């Protein structure tokens, strides 16, 4: 594989917890791979399946979703909804040949900057091992 290749990760971060956690990682000068492209959403449950599927179709090697810890959701129960959706979607993308590891849901609070940096390092390594998303090649063939 091309040693130059760097994975592209789309990150949907919840405004109240994970986004603040990422901010914390930044202001504390923690080192983590810059492969994530952050999209801030007001709540992780604002995501619907279409957005995640579209991210994969558009060439994302992985999709990361960051929300508040269970019970800490700013909107009381948003993250429970996200969890259920992601569980179903994970299996679904597995059925069509996208590795379920490419979709990752983590609970990261505003105080867990180190946790965010660690998760990013882990995720990046994992995706580097998996290689580019199989959909990318198909998209190229289809044009």
């Amino acid at each position: 594989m091309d040693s130059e290749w760097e994975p592209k990760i789309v990150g949907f971060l919840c405004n109240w917890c994970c986004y603040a956690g990422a901010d914390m990682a930044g202001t504390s000068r923690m080192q983590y791979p810059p492969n994530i492209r952050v999209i801030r959403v007001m709540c992780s449950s604002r995501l619907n399946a279409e957005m995640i599927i579209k991210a994969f179709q558009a060439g994302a090697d992985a999709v990361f979703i960051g929300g508040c810890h269970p019970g800490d959701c700013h909107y009381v129960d948003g993250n429970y909804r996200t969890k259920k959706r992601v569980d179903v979607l994970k299996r679904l993308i597995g059925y069509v040949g996208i590795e379920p590891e490419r979709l990752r849901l983590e609970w990261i609070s505003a105080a867990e900057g180190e946790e965010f940096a660690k998760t990013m390092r882990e995720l990046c390594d994992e995706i580097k091992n998996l290689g580019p998303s199989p959909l990318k090649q198909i998209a190229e063939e289809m044009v």
Partner: protein
Amino acid sequence: MERVVRKKVKELLDSGNVIAVIGLKDELGKTTPYLFRRGDDVSKLKLSPHYPLATVARKLHKADPEYKFALLCRGCDERALIEMAKRNQIDLDGIMLIGIACDEKMARECNCAVPYPSCDDIIGEPLRDLELGDPYGEFKKMSTPEKLEFWKKQFLKCNKCYGCRNICPMCFCKECELENGLWLRKGRLPPDYPVYHLIRAFHLAGKCIGCGECEKACPAGIPLMTLNRLVRDDMKDLFDYVAGTDGENVNPLYTKEEF
């Protein structure tokens, strides 16, 4: 069997309990859904091929909620009606169900584990202990790259006719996400891979009643039920929820409870 159904329909219409019965009619060698009323020739009533009559019932009910009619109802039709009623698409109180049990050939064609409705008087012998095995066992054994190859071949055949959505008894949204240019670029054939089929499969999670109409309607012969059935099994596995079995439980994807 058809004779028994015809007799029953005629009796029902003559008794005046219902104004009409939804069934299938043989017309010039073609079979179409038809609303049988008193005085109509019931000898043309047919039972096959299989068609989701629940959709017809929903549309009829929407046009006139006061209209009292009966419906020739197979197991899948009943499941569809239950799911529709949960989503306020139909009121089952005004509708009379004439239960019909599918024969073994039909049940095997649809991979249907429950090929009979739950009402008391069912015409035909309900197959209560049909052993189907696992029709998707071979698919489940594939590795991830093999699955990718398999679906690539299948999805690239899609010509985006929306046939699967149009026939689906559970597809009744006024606005369909599959027509939203945000997710699926217009004028692309085959549709953006694999957005079309994944969105449909996900939207049917906890909704799909497993009638298999999408697969039968697909002109390209894409085995859509493989995907839908796997998601249906997942819903049972993850949340212990099976669509169409119970009028009370709510799709866990719509609720806030933790699992």
